[in-house]
């Protein structure tokens, strides 16, 4: 219990990177620094890794860019 609490209150500068799995360490662009220092951090990272190719699924832009109709000519 004490150990778990210790993990949760690790200061932000704790070396989280060193605690990642070898797979997690190879993934440079993942913002591991932003994961809070908890025993779940590695699992969270793994989920991020697994989901990376799918993150654009359901991509929603705040504005609708496609032309809804096409009545205007190119050279008016």
């Amino acid at each position, binding site marked *: 219990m004490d150990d778990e609490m210790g993990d949760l209150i690790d200061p932000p500068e704790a070396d989280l990177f060193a605690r990642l799995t070898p797979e997690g360490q190879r993934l440079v662009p993942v913002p591991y620094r932003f994961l809070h220092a908890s025993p779940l951090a590695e699992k969270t990272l793994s989920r991020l890794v697994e989901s990376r190719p799918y993150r654009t699924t*359901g991509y929603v832009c705040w504005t*609708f*860019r*496609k032309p809804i109709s096409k*009545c*205007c000519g*190119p050279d008016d």
Partner: protein
Amino acid sequence: MTEETPAGENRAPVFSLFACCIPVRGARRSVICDLQRQSFQFIPNGLYEILTEHPGKPIAEIQAAYDHEYDAEIEEYFDFLLRHEFGFWCRDPERFPPLDLTWEAPERITNAILDVDDRSRHDYGKILAELDDLGCKALEVRCFHRCPLSELKSILEAARHGRLRSIELLAGYGPELTPEALGNLFKEHRRLSGVVIHSAPEKQRFPPDRAGVSLEYRTEVIDSPACCGKIHPGYFVVDVATFAEAQKHNTCLNRKLSVDARGEIRNCPSLPRSFGNVREVSLHSALAQRDFTALWSINKDQIAICKDCEFRYVCTDCRAYLRDAADLYSKPSKCTYDPYTAEWRSPPAFSEKEKHDEEDGASQQRAVPASHRHRDEADHGGPDHPDGHHHLRDRQPEP
């Protein structure tokens, strides 16, 4: 005990395209669509072949695959890609998977057209409420007549508390539709995303304001749905959402619903099939009819000629005006581009549009988020000649 080396340390570097930079092959030339920068560049089909048939191979291996006959050209190709920041050298390309281009949307209808003329008797509140129920997020209102400002205001007022994210207005010119009056409309209705005034005495174009709202006066007369269906580069959209949707769906009609000037519910006001009148039938029940979604899945890979066009995933299709009206899979009749010659039959839209964009500093193809990678925009030399007809294309490597 052996020491573990990081993955790929001993491997020769290979060229990897950024996941958002996707090559698309055409009959005569190809393009690389940069979905993040919302732009595209022409490339020769030889380079397309290298990128798609030899991915993840070191340059020496690719040169060997072509019997070292095109070593200099292949190096030039990769210099071109690097200079335009389409990719990077790395030793571990497997760490950079491609984008998943599955397209999904939670809305049953994503966009809608509402046509209005001087004989229309629409109940705007009812129509907009029903569009809200369907989750519609973008609406274009096309007023074919000389539209009084009060009518535009009443349409926008009906949408004031709805879920629409953007409303575009197309309206016939009247003296009261001044830039100032319309500017006030923009301020009052923040979801208004653009206004085009047709039949104006002179053309005028105002660059998008801080909120991205554009205002344009055009001299052309747009007085009926028959004016729709024009296809030219000004209507190309290079972004993830459109590119992904275009893989399996029709880029114009998918998740679209239209109410024409008489209140008939259609896929598109120019299509003959009506699914009932909005005064008698709810949009829900029109949408529930089996045929309503029949055209949604006709994608550009199924359409004659379009399937050989390099623009097929950035172009919005038209199913209303076809070269062969009897063939659902026929090319749009108002498209003048021939992918087999890589030429536009009518005056070249590219140069004019690009010139126009340069002038007002608001390029659709280069609407780049400031945070994105920097590109040397001034560099137009070398193999990246925009028409794609440069010397390298004529020296395409043969396997």
